[in-house]
């Protein structure tokens, strides 16, 4: 691969990772916690409604995990690029 193709592949891998993680981000915050909260409240998580738990705690835990997945994923993409 020449430099240009390598750059292109790197950027593509980066944006694909970003897109996937943002889909999860929107799914838990906008999806589960707001738009689908009513149906999800029919399910219980521990002793409280699941949709309510997602909105007040679950989404925050997932946000933290998403950022670390991104940071670690980029480590891997960076390494591949250098080789």
């Amino acid at each position: 691969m020449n430099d240009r193709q390598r750059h292109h592949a790197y950027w593509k891998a980066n944006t694909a990772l970003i897109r996937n993680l943002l889909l999860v981000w929107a799914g838990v915050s906008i999806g589960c916690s707001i738009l689908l909260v009513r149906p999800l409240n029919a399910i219980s998580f521990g002793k409280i409604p699941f949709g309510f738990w997602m909105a007040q705690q679950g989404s925050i835990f997932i946000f933290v995990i998403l950022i670390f997945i991104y940071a670690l994923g980029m480590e891997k993409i960076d390494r591949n690029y250098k080789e």
Partner: protein
Amino acid sequence: MSVEAWTTLFVLLSFILYLYIGWRSRVRDSQGFFVADRGVPAIANGAATAADWMSAASFISMAGLISFLGYDGSIYLMGWTGGYVLLALLLAPYLRKFGKYTVPDFVGDRYYSNVARLVAVVAAIFVSLTYVAGQMRGVGIVFSRFLQVPVETGVIIGMVIVGFFAVLGGMKGITWTQVAQYGVLIVAYLIPAVAISTFLTGNPIPQLAFGFSDIVDKLDGVQVDLGFAAYTQPFANKSMLDVLFIAIALMVGTAGLPHVIVRFYTVPSPRDARFSAGWALLFIAILYTTAPAVAAFARYNLIESLHDRPVAEVQQLDWAQKWENTGLLEFKDTNNDGRYQLTPDEATNEIVINADIVVLSTPEVAKLAPWAIALVATGGLAAALSTASGLLLVISSSVAHDVYYRLINPQASESKRVMVGRVMVGFAIVIAGYFGVNPPGFVAQVVAFAFGLAAASFFPAIVLGIFDARTNREGAISGMLVGLVFTTIYIIGVKFYGMEPWFSGISAEGIGTVGMVLNFIVTWVVSRLTPPPPEAIRQMVENLRLPGDAPPALVDVGEEELD
């Protein structure tokens, strides 16, 4: 020892610590003053960002707001954390790689335009000033509640402390004091939370007790019996659409707030910026996942100990007496049945509870020793001071760096630039202090502005600047202006002139989302109707996207050369 004595002791000790750190971190050059020599480790920057981000409002008022709003309070929990995902994925690593000092730096250079730079400067100063006034007021209020010092004196003490480490140490002094302040505020928040959780459920971990005890379930029942909506019932106070728009505006606004973004200029590399955002959100999440538990437990406990109890019994409660004296709790037995009733109807309600009570009274309700109560005061001060110092630096660097150095005197020497920076910090502290002592009546209302404007101005300009090489000067300027003007008019109209929230009933807090979408559309369309950015800029964007730490070679393109 009394609560006052403990509070005085803790506050003094914490102030000595902050002053010591400020003295140790004093700086001489502009790199140290504006971006802490870019030598802050990722995890330390995470802690500093968390302290910078969590204000007096997060610490004192948020749990209270949630306890009154129930499910609808989730907008704050998600809104003020979800933005970090956007920040980590879309902004922080690229801005660090870009390697300048401020947000207007990026906007001005990327869009090869001093007009764009100026729009960004004005927005940055406006957003930060609205925010900082509330923080100084918060410092004064904590002093007055816990130490019976007049609010004004409290504000002035806070000004002196922040002034010391911010003027001497600039960003470096602020960063390391914020790390210490995070430690103080999180301990202060967790001790009473663990205590009330153990007291009510027997489980010391609030996050687990929230989902696995029956308190929330019982609270739902009690609320319905009293005529309120169930605690977990969605959209009891706001429509689904409004909740959605407010949550998005807060998330995007968080990612676009200049005092948060600049923190990522202080780490050594783009890789550190990514991890740093993760640490920051982890540290924030420790408080933000505790808050909903405190909110539900405190609400349950307040209703159980006050509602329908005989007047004599309530008068026996030490904490109820104490907070009644401050005016944050009010009782009046209007129907003269010898008991106080809590109802959703203002005419029959006999217990008025201020939202701030929820956090402030928790240690006493959980029967903690006086030193734990003193710790809450120290934590509240740490939260307010750390946020204030971060905002003051943004105001100072906007004027000293973006206006003075980049626009007025590009030949200024290092020492002169740092000197102007120090003077501007001092100047900003005086203005913030003035608003802290004489709060304009609209401060609480204009906070919606800070997020709405950040969402409608910076966020689209920066994201498109990185991810769309075709975005040009004309597009970015018109997009920012349309976003700013639309959002400002809507908020001012709804808040001050009684305008109907005509956009699908979206409230002023949520309209930033619409402003952001408008900004994106206008920028995109105008960019494609006008000439593409010069080759040098395309090259710069190309370099921003590459791995490695070297900042992209920057060509300063003068406006006159382009036209």
